[in-house]
């Protein structure tokens, strides 16, 4: 087998090793659960079907696209996404449901709080 194959394989492994910390750092930062509530309304979205880290990426991405959503904190164990809202923004339950469905999941309940 050609020597360059081994060079490519070694380079690929090296690339993967180098990418890991970068990609991990590039992932969306999680909103600390202790974020001050005064920042705006908190909406807790109960989502059925969330069961792996990759599922969370799509859900977070679509929820963040909703105007007024400033942060999304997902709990895999609880199956919830807590939306930190811009105080001046208003979003409907339908918008939230649509965003979650675009990620391939279903909303079972939406709770709104201060």
């Amino acid at each position, binding site marked *: 087998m050609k020597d360059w194959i081994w060079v490519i394989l070694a380079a690929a492994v090296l690339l993967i090793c180098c990418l890991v910390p970068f990609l991990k750092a*590039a992932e969306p930062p*999680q909103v600390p659960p202790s974020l001050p509530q005064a920042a705006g309304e908190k909406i807790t979205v109960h989502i059925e079907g969330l069961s792996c880290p990759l599922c969370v990426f799509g859900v977070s991405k679509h929820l963040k696209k909703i105007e007024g959503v400033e942060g999304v904190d997902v709990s895999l164990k609880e199956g919830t996404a807590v939306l930190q809202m811009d105080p001046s923004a208003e979003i409907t339950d339908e918008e939230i449901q649509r965003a979650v469905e675009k*990620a391939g999941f279903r909303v079972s309940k939406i709770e709104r709080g201060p």
Partner: protein
Amino acid sequence: MRLLFRQLLFLGFAASFLHAGPISFNTAMPVHEGGIVVRQQAVWVQMHQDPSSLDREMDVFLFPFTLVYGATSNLAVMGNFPYLDKELGMGSGGVVRENSGWGDLTTVARYEIFERNRLGQTVRGALFAGLEWPTGKDDEIDSLGLLPPDLQVGSGSFDLIVGTVWTAQWLSFQIDADLLYTRNNEANNFKFGDVVREDLSFQYRLWPRGLSPHGVPSYVYGVLEANSLYQFQNEISDVGDEDSGGYQLFLTPGVQWVSRRTVLDLAVQLPTIQNLHGDALKTDFQLVAGFQILF
């Protein structure tokens, strides 16, 4: 040439809808609408068990590059474009024949037909269909003349792929199963045998052992897969080649690291049963490593 080789292309294809999940084949988990998955794998296949007296040894390196796009939450489309490097040695005369280049492009659409969600668990079922395009060269020659079909990087034919895949996923483990049929067509008076493939995968979360109520940790899965593959005889000018085709069963232990956007995986496919026809070369192992990034 009498090799059961087409399985390699299926590995390149079948691993393409991965959303974590299996390493060596498909999953029914959704790619979110507008989402793109980029996947690169490296596969090394060693086939040094020659039942004939020719003392043949074959090594294949396959680098499948895959793009998956979530057209809707139910429909995903995929393109798989492999780079191949093949080398066949004949021990007795020291003859070596080799070839490398871009192989056949495979395009597949997968549509979700079943979905059931509960807290922390989901069950999905999907159908998929696709076409393998003859983009790879199928008429390469070396000093000994035209390379045999198994040493070409392209098949020369349009080939149809249909199948179904099912996934059941919980917070701590996941089970996937698929069934795939490939209808190969004739090119240059040669037809690769059709292929029926079944796969089963079990992934268990090794780390973290427990989940915090807050946040989304990265997972490390231990993976065990079984890959069952039957290939019908190849045909040369409509006559069956009795030294081609047969049944193979692989057991595939592996490990997988999964974060929100990235997956790294490593597995080795070990042949457990190889009932190949005639003098077909047998596989020693297949080593699979890869990564994927979700956008």
